């Protein structure tokens, strides 16, 4: 199982370097390759134009069958589905995950989620939610997916 996950991750890394050059910047954080940082720029014409964001992907040995843990690190974008601790409310990261998804596809769908926002706005319950999400993996949070964008 371990070998399978590493093989696919190596291919994904190569795919990002070859096919997303200039869009996604990959930074593999640890030697065993189980933690990646992916940097990207807010889309032109969106409210995040030019801002740089970093997503952190943590993979388990059962990746891609088990979803990766994905959060924003550094300063997260101000968005109604992104909490100030970097947690993201997006169903494909949790209940709607399928192993046919990849790091590049996940990042692009987060980028498009940001691009469709018209105003910068934190989630309504941000302060409160951040408190009760403390020390909890985003995958363990009971997300309520309110609308189809989410």
């Amino acid at each position, binding site marked *: 199982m371990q070998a*399978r996950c590493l*093989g*696919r991750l*190596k*291919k*994904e890394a*190569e*795919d990002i370097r*070859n096919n997303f050059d200039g869009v996604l910047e990959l930074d593999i954080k640890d030697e065993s390759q189980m933690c990646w940082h992916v940097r990207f720029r807010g889309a032109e014409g969106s409210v995040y134009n030019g801002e740089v964001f970093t997503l952190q992907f943590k993979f388990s040995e*059962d990746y*891609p*069958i*088990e979803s990766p843990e994905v959060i924003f690190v550094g300063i997260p974008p101000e968005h109604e589905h992104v909490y100030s601790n970097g947690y993201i409310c997006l169903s494909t990261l949790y209940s*709607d*995950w*399928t*192993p*046919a998804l990849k790091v590049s596809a996940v990042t692009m769908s987060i980028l498009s989620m940001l691009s469709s926002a018209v105003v910068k706005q934190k989630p309504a319950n941000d302060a409160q939610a951040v408190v009760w999400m403390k020390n909890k993996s985003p995958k363990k949070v009971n997300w309520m997916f309110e609308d189809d964008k989410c």
Partner: protein
Amino acid sequence: MAQETKELSIQFKDQGNLWYSQKDYQKAIELYSRAIMINDNNPTFYLNRAKCFKMLKTFDKQYQDSLKAIELDDSYIKAYIVNGEALVELGKNDKNTAKIEKGILRMKKALNMCFKQNQKNFEKEIQTSLKKAEKIKWYKQTEIDSHDKERLMYQIRGKMDNHQDDQDILGRFEKYLNQTDPRYEETKNQAREHRSTHKEIPDFLICRITDDLMEQPVVIQSGFTYEKSAILKHFQINGNIDPITRQSVDPNILIPNHYLKQATEYYLERNPWAFQYIPGELYLQYHM
């Protein structure tokens, strides 16, 4: 007395096995060597030590020990595999593919013995080793071919110095060489770096979960094909949906896709590099 020393040597071997399972190969080698000092007639002691040398990438010693094991017991399947693997590794640094081919023969012999001794349990392991060996042979052959051609071009160019007409002929000749062997252009630089350039395996041979060729392709209710172990694990973790279409499926419907399996074997025979292929891989770092 003889019985006592025999028991002692077995004790050393067992301790060696313990260190081996702890991945302390130096310590394991020490203990197997002690066992051999007392009793140098037991092929298992040599083979276990050979496996330690394999883990430490000391391939010449792996070769010697596994050969000794074969000498002591010429029906020792495992010893043929380990010996063949050592030959393939040693052959990587040669100027021809002789050693690699010899290694492949050893593995084929092991496979034959499996059939004769009716020992199914090694079969899969040998098949995997054979595919790895064929892949290494392909890389080696490609490297040799491109070196040969480059040297040839260099020599001809030297002889044709300053003759404009001949230079044109030379250009056409080089173009011809590239056409007859599409690997040539691609591998010219690759041979120097021992790094593969980007190659494509057709999507229809690839499992969307493992992103690799399939060992046991199975069709599920949606009509898509996946690696059996991966799709079973997916059902267990993510529920009974198709990974690509997300439609609900009956997890009990898993039909072996025999034709796709055949197609994969056919493809691998012609493209040995595709086995466990990772773009940009360094072939010298690809081990048996």
